[in-house]
């Protein structure tokens, strides 16, 4: 089921003063999405340019496989495109987009788990298991594609539990607040807060031990 953080309420507030007032309170992304919903294809291009980078990095660092990330990236945008006629802006657009991304990622992990369970079952039947199965995206050959990203920080990020890694990525890549992270991941606010706190604490601890945190200036805003 798709997220209703942006509230799919067919027919609601489509005309009149209420609609105008709601438009005034919307963020720019939501306005673009509404324009795209109403047939303005150029609005999608602008929306895509704003969010493609954060979404791609969120997916890539979640599944840690460039091919799977590309597939998921396309799937997320395809779902957004397919359901655009039901879009109603009631919250920040990023929560809507990243909730779709969260659902796609969870589906991916479930499929991946089933795939490897079947593979392990078949292998056990043939008495050929010689070492524990690991997900495909964690095998050394697949990891090679991330060589360029092998920084201490990303290594520590990848070592986090998936829920904590996701909370960190949602905040860093899309600037979501704890409340918005909770809505995207469909957990309570305290749970989201706890996950982010643990992620931050572990990353800081890991990086402090490697002494890589310095006072370098911020890079310009990424896209």
């Amino acid at each position, binding site marked *: 089921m798709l997220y209703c953080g942006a509230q799919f309420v067919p027919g609601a507030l489509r005309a009149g003063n209420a609609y105008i007032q709601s438009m005034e309170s919307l963020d720019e992304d939501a306005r673009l999405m509404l324009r795209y919903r109403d047939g303005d294809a150029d609005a999608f291009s602008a929306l895509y340019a704003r969010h493609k980078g954060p979404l791609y990095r969120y997916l890539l660092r979640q599944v840690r496989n460039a091919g799977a990330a590309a597939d998921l990236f396309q799937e997320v945008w395809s779902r957004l495109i397919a359901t655009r006629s039901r879009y109603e802006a009631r919250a920040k657009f990023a929560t809507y987009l990243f909730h779709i991304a969260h659902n796609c990622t969870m589906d991916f992990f479930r499929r991946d788990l089933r795939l490897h369970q079947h593979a392990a079952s078949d292998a056990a039947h043939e008495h050929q298991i010689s070492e524990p199965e690991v997900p495909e995206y964690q095998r050394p050959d697949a990891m090679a594609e991330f060589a360029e*990203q092998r920084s201490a920080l990303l290594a520590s990020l990848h070592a986090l539990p998936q829920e904590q890694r996701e909370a960190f990525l949602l905040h860093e890549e899309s600037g979501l607040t704890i409340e918005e992270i909770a809505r995207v991941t469909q957990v309570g606010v305290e749970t989201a807060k706890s996950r982010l706190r643990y992620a931050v604490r572990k990353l800081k601890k890991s990086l402090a031990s490697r002494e890589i945190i310095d006072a370098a200036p911020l890079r310009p805003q990424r896209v």
Partner: protein
Amino acid sequence: MYPPDDLDEYLRGDSALSCQYRRELAPTPPPALDARVLELSRPPGPYAARAAGGNAPCLAPLAFAASVLLSVALVLAIVFGPQRPKRSDDAPRVVRIAYSGDSKLARSPRAWLADIAALRRAGHNREADEELRRFRSAYPGYSIGDIP
């Protein structure tokens, strides 16, 4: 338990951790993927727009109206449409059908016997015999007297 200010400091956005993360490589989707998604966002026609849940007008009412219009036009064409010009001999005519009933109803017994006699005189004995047989079967009680 961790001190609460760890998270608060991080959420302010200027923590060393955030700075470090933003210095990392920032991969973006490959151009081919960009092109694919942008292509998906632009349905090529009304059918694709409908499949994608877009705002293209629904064609069902138009299709229904066209069907009704064609049906009415077809009925009117059959009932009131142009017809062949009538010919003078198209009027109902009595069909004359040659009577092919028994010869006993076509001829009187006397005439039939006269015909048999004529056949006999002409030397067509076999035909005369055949006609006589048919006469007797048609008029079994008829006295033929000195009929040949």
